[in-house]
């Protein structure tokens, strides 16, 4: 366990930024957003960033290949990226937990090399949540915001920031910046952890449980007539999917640049009417089906295929951002999720 005084935190940042790029949440007029640290940049005190941290490994758009055309000749040029090491500071437990879910998708065979490279080069420093918000329900999915995970975990206690490596990568990073840190005891942060857990208990969604859904048959859930009412006012926008740390669907598109074709991938949303549209048409024609797909995927299909792991980490972004305030919590409750006593 190491520590640094909060008023000297820039020394730590400086030390990290000396060898690689450092990203951390910064206050902007669009809430907290990850920005590259440079001298003078201060870290946001917000609980979480507007957009999730998945952007680091899975950016919204990414070039895959290019087809150069000259007259009738076509040349295929695969996308070659140069990857550099980087550090993300201030990731919360929920987002850190989301990486494991993304890994299951992108790192299983066939491995998504773009994702794998970015994942490999990134070091995550997480930060425990001292002031959780009402929209938080990470505990429902077994995430403990007092033990935030990542390559390095950090806790803030008063004017001190405590850091502890969780992985080899984290170990290496902390060693490299050891000059900016001083030794500390693990017990020092126990009160912080305890306080966080107390706060988590008080949250309005603390007792949310999926037990009631787990007990139901998949097809019963699928054919439930409750979906109609739930999806009735859904606008079909992609806000929930785009701010979600675990949504990982993308579309591959070609863009005619006039000199050739740029093939790229970009985030897609199962809420969109043209999602997975094929030559024959669309498989999910109504917004109800699309809506159902999103939640069935997160709460039923994904755990079915992934040892019971839900594809939701309870970060609460969709609760805050949905234009009509329909969200996974309301879905869980309506579909039979119980209040855990």
């Amino acid at each position, binding site marked *: 366990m190491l520590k640094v005084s909060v008023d000297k935190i820039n020394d730590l940042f400086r030390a990290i930024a000396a060898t690689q790029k450092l990203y951390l949440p910064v206050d902007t007029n669009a809430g907290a957003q990850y920005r590259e640290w440079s001298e003078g940049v201060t870290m946001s005190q917000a609980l979480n960033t507007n957009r999730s941290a998945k952007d680091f490994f899975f950016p919204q758009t990414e070039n895959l290949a290019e087809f150069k055309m000259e007259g*009738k000749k076509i040349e295929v040029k695969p996308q070659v990226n140069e990857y550099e090491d980087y550090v993300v500071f201030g990731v919360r437990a929920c987002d850190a937990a989301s990486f494991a879910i993304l890994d299951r998708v992108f790192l299983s065979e066939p491995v998504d090399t773009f994702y794998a490279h970015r994942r490999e080069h990134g070091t995550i420093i997480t930060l425990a949540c001292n002031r959780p918000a009402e929209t938080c329900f990470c505990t429902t999915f077994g995430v403990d915001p007092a033990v935030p995970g990542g390559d390095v975990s950090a806790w803030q206690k008063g004017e001190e920031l405590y850091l502890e490596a969780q992985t080899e990568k984290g170990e290496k990073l902390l060693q490299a910046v050891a000059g900016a840190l001083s030794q500390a005891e693990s017990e020092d942060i126990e009160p912080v952890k305890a306080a966080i857990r107390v706060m988590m208990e008080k949250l309005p969604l603390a007792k949310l449980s999926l037990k009631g859904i787990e007990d139901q048959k998949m097809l019963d859930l699928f054919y439930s007539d409750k979906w109609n009412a739930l999806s009735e006012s859904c606008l079909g926008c992609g806000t929930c999917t785009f701010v979600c740390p675990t949504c990982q669907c993308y579309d591959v598109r070609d863009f005619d640049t006039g000199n050739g074709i740029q093939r790229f991938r970009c985030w897609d949303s199962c809420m969109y009417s043209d999602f997975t549209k094929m030559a024959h048409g669309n498989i999910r024609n*109504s917004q109800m089906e699309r809506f159902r797909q999103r939640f069935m995927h997160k709460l039923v299909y994904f755990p079915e295929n992934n040892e019971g792991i839900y594809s939701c980490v309870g970060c609460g972004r969709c609760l805050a951002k949905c234009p009509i305030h329909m969200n996974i919590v309301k879905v869980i409750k309506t579909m039979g999720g119980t209040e855990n006593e």
Partner: protein
Amino acid sequence: MQRIGVFVCWCGSNIAATVDVQQVADELAKEPGVVYSTNYQYMCSQSGQQMIQEAIKEHHLTGIVICSCSPRMHEATFRKTAAAAGLNSYMVEIANIREQCSWIHKNKEEATEKAIILGRAAIAKVHLNAPLTAGESPVVKRALVIGGGIAGIQTALDIADAGFEVDIVEKKPTIGGKMAQIDKTFPTLDCAACILTPKMVDVAQNEKIHIYSYSEVESVKGFVGNFTATIKKKARYVKEDVCTGCGLCTEKCPMKKVPNEFNQMLDNRTAIYIPFAQAVPKVATIDPNACMMLKNGKCGVCSKVCTAGAIDYTQKDEYIEQQYGAIVVATGFNTIKLDNFDEFAYSQSPDVVTSLEFERLMNAAGPTGGTLLRPSDHTHPHTLVFVQCVGSRDISGCGKPYCSKICCMYTAKHAMLCREKYPDTEVYVFYIDVRTPGKNFDEFYRRAVEEYGVHYIKGMVGKVAPKDGKLMVQASDLLANDQLLIEADMVVLATAIEPDESARSIATMLTASMDTNDFFTEAHPKLRPVESPTAGIFLSGVCQGPKDIPETVSQASAAAAKVIGLLVKDKLTCNPCVAESNELMCNGCSACEKVCPYGAITYSDKEFRTPYRTTIMRRVASVNPAVCQGCGACTVACPSGAMDLKGFSTRQIMAEVDAICK
């Protein structure tokens, strides 16, 4: 993938001198889809065209690009060439490398480069061309003429002469219009009735012409070649086919104090009436607002005296639906109301009259039997003042901003007739400008001044005040820089004319455009003066703008010629480059309909299939290809991109943009 052929024309040295045609052909040959590329001295020549046709056949070309002069020159030529070789004419695109390249650029390298880019743009476009077939729509061989004045009469006669059926719809009980009210005509001074009434008789006797008098057009649907009009035949309470026009009823009718509109209300008529002796059809009409029988069921005299038994108090308005290939608007004019012109004392003294009233006062068939008498005391006037431009050329909002065109001449006519018939009268004409452009017009006016001694005074009347049975006319004499005070017996106002009040609603019905003065707009002010921009609608007479009789008649005949030109066709070939609405994307918002200048877009509620065997009703637009002229206004108004223009589709234009900016 298209198989495209590129043909680069030298145009002798016109292109070849500044553009390296060989290089253009070589470069364009490298473009995707181009399977054949060549250049030749004169592509438009017989042998050039032959070359194109052979290439089309030999290389199975699906599209061709001609790099040559402006498409305005030879697009039609090359389209025919392609068609002759079995290729759809609309699979041809022209790259304009003469007018817009070789002729304006001196540097050969630059010009060649530009020619290549223009060629690429044309290739990009032709890639997206689709074969288009000009649609055909049948033509109903019958014309509708709205208005039975001299304009309508002449148009109808000319159309009927060519062997086509014509219907005249006239809202008054008789045809004849304003000309029937006029006494003499300028500049020849022959009597209007003498030249008009024979024409009216011709109309009545012409088998091809049907007159719907006392009728109005209720609605018009359809489009060029195929209009459906509903005509409302107002109840005249007299059986038209039975009435002999003997006029006995009009003599016996006890209701004798109905103002006579034919005589501009200067005298009275009976409740059952025939407007004038030569009326066509010569059939009596009962005025429902005046007839005692119709109002309170007490009277029935006309019915009793009618030996033919033509009176039918129970008659109802009748609606007739009829199809037409063309519609001619001949709605004519009226004199404006003089409510805004108190200074001329029109409402204060009966001796202040409009020129149309004056016509009636001078007319042998008029209220005074042709003797000029003052309406107030029926005495002979000795001093007459004519005021020109009353309400014309007025931008103050009281009158009309335009020149009414006919007043100068008829005022000269009136003045001259007065002096001729009554040499003891003094006649003053106050004018701003005297406008006499027309055959024998200026001579006519000068005769009034020189031979008849009419006092033409440049200036305007500022005030007319009735005083002791006289009219005190205060006016300026600009040339003498003086103010005059004339003691007149009568004042005649050359009142501005305006389109008939029915014109606006008819224009709406026909989706024909109008100007701010409610005159119909012509398709082109110089080159298509008798057509409305709306296909199949033609304009005759004053409804299009102020005109005198000779002009009206020439325009009427011109409109007839245009109508005949349309009706002789069995089918209309439509420009295939028209807008097309994709019903699947249309949301029925009406934006396109609002910007369409031709009324080519209509809406209907349609049932659409939705998933799981459900359906939904949606309002969608459809374009009538026979009416659409292909301007494309709707394509941009449409936010969803449901509306596209064939031949100039969004994708085609964007492909051109891409090729040019590459």
